[in-house]
């Protein structure tokens, strides 16, 4: 499998996740999008040293992972390139802020490490929430939701078309590079002397492809904007979803739940 096919494979995997059937998948995209935005905004608003508060916000991704049946390790795997970078964001804090706030045995822990942990937790929660939105919502549903939020039809149409083109293009690249490498075994990349003929081939193939794509869109009645069904709206259960999560998030933000639970047991 070459690189392009690998990319396509991962793209399809994300599509398959989004096409699943779970209680979370069935809620409207609009409700999920709004909850995700509220959740990330509230999570980011915690104080830089409020570790217990931020950790409690894990309730939302936790419940969604459970309800959707998407394993947490899938999220970790898909985000494997991003997670180290989240750690990067706060990497300077332990170096710049060395005041100890607690000494465990003889090892001092600095405020820098605390704020680093908070930043990392915030980053992971935001990533999980974004991943859950992407993994439980189909692209056309999200686009319909964006239209409901009054995003101009032009942008939404470009998003939908682009999404379709990307997989076509990546597929085409895969086929072409396979063909090239079968004829040039052991060669790394494309020799510059072959770039002309390679481009010539690309020209012919993609000309056919682009013509077919646009013609078939016109034949299916495309006239400058896609049509959306009623599923873009919010039914009663979607309002329930939105309001319940808003209430839960507000509660978690305003009440130090972890400490209250801890006190109950002491």
């Amino acid at each position: 499998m070459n690189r392009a096919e690998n990319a396509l494979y991962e793209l399809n995997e994300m599509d398959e996740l989004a096409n699943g059937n779970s209680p979370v998948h069935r809620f409207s995209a609009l409700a999920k999008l709004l909850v995700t935005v509220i959740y990330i905004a509230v999570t980011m608003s915690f104080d830089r040293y409020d570790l217990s508060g931020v950790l409690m916000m894990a309730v939302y991704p936790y419940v969604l992972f459970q309800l959707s049946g998407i394993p947490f390790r899938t999220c970790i795997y898909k985000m494997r390139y991003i997670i180290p970078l989240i750690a990067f964001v706060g990497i300077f804090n332990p170096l710049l802020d060395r005041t100890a706030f607690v000494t465990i045995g003889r090892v001092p822990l600095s405020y820098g490490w605390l704020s680093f942990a908070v930043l990392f937790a915030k980053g992971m929660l935001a990533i999980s929430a974004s991943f859950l939105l992407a993994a439980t919502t189909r692209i056309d549903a999200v686009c319909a939701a964006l239209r409901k939020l009054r995003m101009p039809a032009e942008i939404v149409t470009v998003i939908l078309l682009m999404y379709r083109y990307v997989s076509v293009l990546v597929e085409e690249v895969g086929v072409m590079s396979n063909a090239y490498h079968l004829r040039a075994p052991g060669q790394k990349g494309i020799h510059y002397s072959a770039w002309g003929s390679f481009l010539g081939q690309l020209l012919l193939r993609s000309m056919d492809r682009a013509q077919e794509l646009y013609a078939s869109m016109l034949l299916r009645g495309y006239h400058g904007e896609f049509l959306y069904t009623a599923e873009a709206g919010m039914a009663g259960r979607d309002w329930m979803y939105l309001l319940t999560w808003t209430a839960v998030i507000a509660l978690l933000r305003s009440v130090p739940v972890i400490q209250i639970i801890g006190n109950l047991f002491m």
Partner: protein
Amino acid sequence: MHMADVLLSPGVAATMYAASGTAAGVSINRLRRENEPEKLPVMAVSAAMVFAGQMINYTIPGTGSSGHICGGILLSALLGPYAGFLSMIAVLVVQCLFFADGGLLALGANIWNMAFYGCFVGYFLIWRPIMKGKALSSLPVSARITAAAVLGCIVSLQLGALSVVIETSLSGITDLPFGPFVGVMLPIHLAIRLVEGLITAAVLVFVYKARPELIKDADESAGNSMSLKAVLCILAVVTLFVGGGLSLYASGNPDGLEWALFGNREAGYAENMALDEEAFGVESSAAETAAQVQETTSFLPDYAFKDNDSALGTTVSGVVGSVVVAGCALLLSCIFGFFRKRNAAGRADVN
């Protein structure tokens, strides 16, 4: 250069949303006044081209960092600044909503940093003056395209990199001091954008030779005779060229297409946060921060841990609470898992 949510405070994020939203509103108005619905597929193919281009990370020699193209200049040279800006928005929205690349709250800031400067500043202050200016009119068009593309990429993305630093500093979330951060961001982006400028120039010169009327401001005598098919074809070819040809060329690079639609943040942050040993030794306002902390912290408070009972109590309650919550979570996992299996079994029976 994609910023994550965790870098921005909600206030800064909202401001950037407002700024980018205004620019998008102006662009949409212009696009509607032009009233060319057939332009949308062209925008989509161009956006797909940039999306494919952003998959490819090229390494910057001698730094250990890598970068990917941004595409603002490329799109505005092909589509004009307004349609180019909207296409860039489409690219960034897809990356954000479907691949969790670039934060949802940071989307406004990302649009501003990567699309606004390239499409508006780069186009109006660099591309158009160079392409249409009298001073350079004796040069061949391909030389002017190269100059405009390289200069446009460098200037617009230096501005973008500076914005990343300013937005991060205004948010006050990381302890990274402004000076060293700028000192790291701007030089590394100079290198990355020089390469982007050369790639953009190669693509645009190729398009110019095949279909000169596609390049904005390149040839005033060209009419509006281009057919939609031709436009789509050329753009798709360039996309394939960028996505396919160059990725093969860059196959020695560990990031490349393997990045596989999900990992291109790596490049963004390698640049954004490029580790600099010098920055480690910078003074911090630790004492000030510590004082502030005493007021605000709620978990593991005050370093008076050993001799302050209430602080000790709060800390321990936090730990105990965490353990209890984690236990409940584990229990619930088992219960959820049990019901999922039973439901699946039930459905199988019905079938």
